[in-house]
């Protein structure tokens, strides 16, 4: 045990029915460092965090926190807070209807009376001190997500935490907001707080972290200083594959240009959320919308699917004029749409994997033409195998699956309806590298089978690997259509930024 360690976990075990989630895992966090906890989905990151924060009880091993001469006993989130372990989760765990100041102090004051003046004064000091652009009396729901996250961090900091856990804090923030968050993190690091940073974004790890601990399948792979572990090797460690395998990752398959036949064509299509735009896609083509967050790429595909209120424009599907004003009509015309926000728009958490897979097909058929149980089972089995969905059975509720597998279930839902044209909006967000690769491969395979696919992703490399045509958006307008030689990272970036146009 090092002297400067604020947190030491030794030989942690955690069993779940049927699996070992954590198998003899060690973890050490030093004073004033930002320590990335990396691993694919299901590697045990979340379980380790939950053991540390008292959401789960550990089944073996010991935890020491600086200043305590005995093993720390953590049985509830309150226990964890009391010994100086604070957590900021991906989802904001503050109350939107209360003020910023109140969110910082509620639940941790003694006394029955609320001293507003004092709260506001202390909150203002703290906000200034940490450079957070919020006002103490502002209602929390009126702050941007990034600021809300920072308020949560300020609360944690004010509680004199020694260990700050940031569990995927950046997944819903844009670049500027991420930068603000990183500044705050470096600031806290300088004050001697140990920060555990969990994220899926590799670049972010290399931007702020000092050290990396990698987990795989519930076991410790190793702890590394950031300079000793190049990005490629980190990915290899996470996936447990050799570098040679990763070379294949660069080329997942043959890109498909598509046939001449136009499957879908829109002229000056606009919706309540998007400006008019023209768009077409050929049979068997994979194309993509790219642009910064908020550039209108998701809004455009939502207009195609009729998910927002369509306000104008002409649409032709396979050469015929059609009207698509709601998702049901889109589905009838052979269009499928995998929404961006999996949790909100995609999965129905309490239903089983099977029911989630069947859903879209059932809607297409209409509820008065039920499918037989045997048929449903057969369909579910077929796609669980085809997409290699990791689930205990098809009756398992989808909420107990990992993010990547949930995404595959929703993909299966759409594939089952055999669409001619499938729109995938950020299908790989928040899922691990291995599953990302599988989904990319699948997209190319679908295109080979003559399905047209529109693919949206925040990661340009991913788009370059799969799309033969990239539509670049900026400020809700299409600013470029790139094909062939133009499809390089540099050129795409330039177009997005609007340098030479």
């Amino acid at each position: 045990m090092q002297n400067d360690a604020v947190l030491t976990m030794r030989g942690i075990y955690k069993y779940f029915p049927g699996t070992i989630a954590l198998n003899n895992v060690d973890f050490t966090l030093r004073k004033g460092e930002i320590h990335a906890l990396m691993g694919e989905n299901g590697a045990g990151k979340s379980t380790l965090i939950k053991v540390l924060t008292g959401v789960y009880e550990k089944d073996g091993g010991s935890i020491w926190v600086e200043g305590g001469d005995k093993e720390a006993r953590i049985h509830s989130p309150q226990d964890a807070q009391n010994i100086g372990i604070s957590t900021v989760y991906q989802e904001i765990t503050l109350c939107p209807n209360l003020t910023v100041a109140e969110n910082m102090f509620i639940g941790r004051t003694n006394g029955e009376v609320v001293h507003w003046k004092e709260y506001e004064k202390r909150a203002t000091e703290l906000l200034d001190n940490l450079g957070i652009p919020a006002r103490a009396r502002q209602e929390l729901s009126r702050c941007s997500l990034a600021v809300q996250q920072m308020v949560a961090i300020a609360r944690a900091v004010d509680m004199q935490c020694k260990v700050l856990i940031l569990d995927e804090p950046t997944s819903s923030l844009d670049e500027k907001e991420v930068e603000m968050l990183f500044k705050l993190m470096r600031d806290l690091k300088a004050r001697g707080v140990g920060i555990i940073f969990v994220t899926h974004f590799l670049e972010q790890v290399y931007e702020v972290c000092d050290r990396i601990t990698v987990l795989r399948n519930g076991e410790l792979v190793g702890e590394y200083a950031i300079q000793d572990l190049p990005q490629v090797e980190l990915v290899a460690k996470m996936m447990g594959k050799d570098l040679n395998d990763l070379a294949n990752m660069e080329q997942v398959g043959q890109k498909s240009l598509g046939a001449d036949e136009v499957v879908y064509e829109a002229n000056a299509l606009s919706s309540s959320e998007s400006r008019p735009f023209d768009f077409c896609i050929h049979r068997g083509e994979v194309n993509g919308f790219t642009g910064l967050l908020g550039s209108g790429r998701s809004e455009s595909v939502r207009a195609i699917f009729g998910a927002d209120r369509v306000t104008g424009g002409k649409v032709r599907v396979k050469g015929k004029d059609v009207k698509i004003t709601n998702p049901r009509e889109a589905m009838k015309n052979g269009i499928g749409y995998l929404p961006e926000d999996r949790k909100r728009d995609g999965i129905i958490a309490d239903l089983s994997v099977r029911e989630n897979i069947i859903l879209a097909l059932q809607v297409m058929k209409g509820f008065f033409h039920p499918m037989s149980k045997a048929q449903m089972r057969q369909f579910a089995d077929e796609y669980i195998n085809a997409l290699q969905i990791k689930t205990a059975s098809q009756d398992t509720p989808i909420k107990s699956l990992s993010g990547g597998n949930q995404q595959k279930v929703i993909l299966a839902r759409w594939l089952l309806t055999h669409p001619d044209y499938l729109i995938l909006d950020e299908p790989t967000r928040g899922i691990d590298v291995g599953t990302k690769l599988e989904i990319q491969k699948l997209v190319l395979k679908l295109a080979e089978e003559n399905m047209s696919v529109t693919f949206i992703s925040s990661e340009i490399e991913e788009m370059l690997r799969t799309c033969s045509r990239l539509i670049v958006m900026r400020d809700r307008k299409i600013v470029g259509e790139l094909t062939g030689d133009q499809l390089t990272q540099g050129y795409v970036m330039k177009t997005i930024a609007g340098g030479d146009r």
Partner: protein
Amino acid sequence: MTGVNTTSRAKRKEPMTDAQLLMTISICIFAFMYAAAMIFLGGGFLKFQQIFDLLNDNAALIIISCSLTIVMIGGGINISVGGVIGLTVMSCALFLNNNGIQNGFLSILLTILLALGIGLAFGVLEGFLVSFLGIQPFIVTLAGMFLSRGLTTMLSVNPVKVTHEAFLALVKSKIKIPWLGYVAQNGNPIPAKLEIGAVVALCVVILVYLMLHFMRFGRNIYALGGNRQSALMLGINVRSTCFWSYVLSGLLSGLAGYVFLMHKPAGNASVAMRSEMDAIAASIIGGTLLTGGVGNVIGTLFGVMILATIQKIIALSPLNASWWQEMASGAMLGFFIILQSVVLSNRGKHKSKDKE
């Protein structure tokens, strides 16, 4: 730089919160309606006594509306309040008539304790079922409503009129404020009269307001209604907060029952029938969101006053019939909810513009 920042921040006025905005709207609507009634109907509306009468007649409704506002802010609902009033009124009336205690003061004290006890019992029971067993509050309090109505009928099928003299004296005693009164046609000055029940109701409004805004318990209720999961993560004891909000709600409905008896000293199986619905309507009109987290008892008070004013206006107008009253209240509620959603969605748009 920091110092400058602090002062400029402190000086900057925050925009109204949703709760404040909704409350302001309901106060304005009340003022507007009352002014219109003064101009077009005149008569009683020109006398100050009218406002006191609204308070006197609706004291019990004000108290249960406060009780509902509390649970609704916490994201719950309590539809047993009317039933608890009925049961309290009936049991207190029977107790007063049959106890045989000569000392008037003692029997009044005992009935107060009885009323609060009944309310407390319902609150504890419902609070336990909702917060510790996690049963839907609507179902739990629906059961509470049936139970209390059933018990009331079991106590007496026939109406019971209170004959206890000390209590009737209490009923008759009113607070007289001469300078708010008026002079009758025969030249006698008639002071404005406020019943004890109305004073109790106003005190309840003030106390609940203070509790919700300046006590830890009250703020915890807001947090609970804002986001239950977050409240838990923020270290709030969610179960106990939820439990005590129902206990308080039950206690207030017991008190409302006693206030009701002081206004109309007679028990009846159908006393305060459907008053829980009026209370929900009043809370919503006063700016409490059914989804929890937003609300204010001052607004609720005005919600009750709006409903009461509608009733009075219709009673004085040529449309005097009970269906017109109900339809007007319904229209008011519908109007207000539409207004709320329009206002809130407009604010949402501004919010996103701010961000850009």
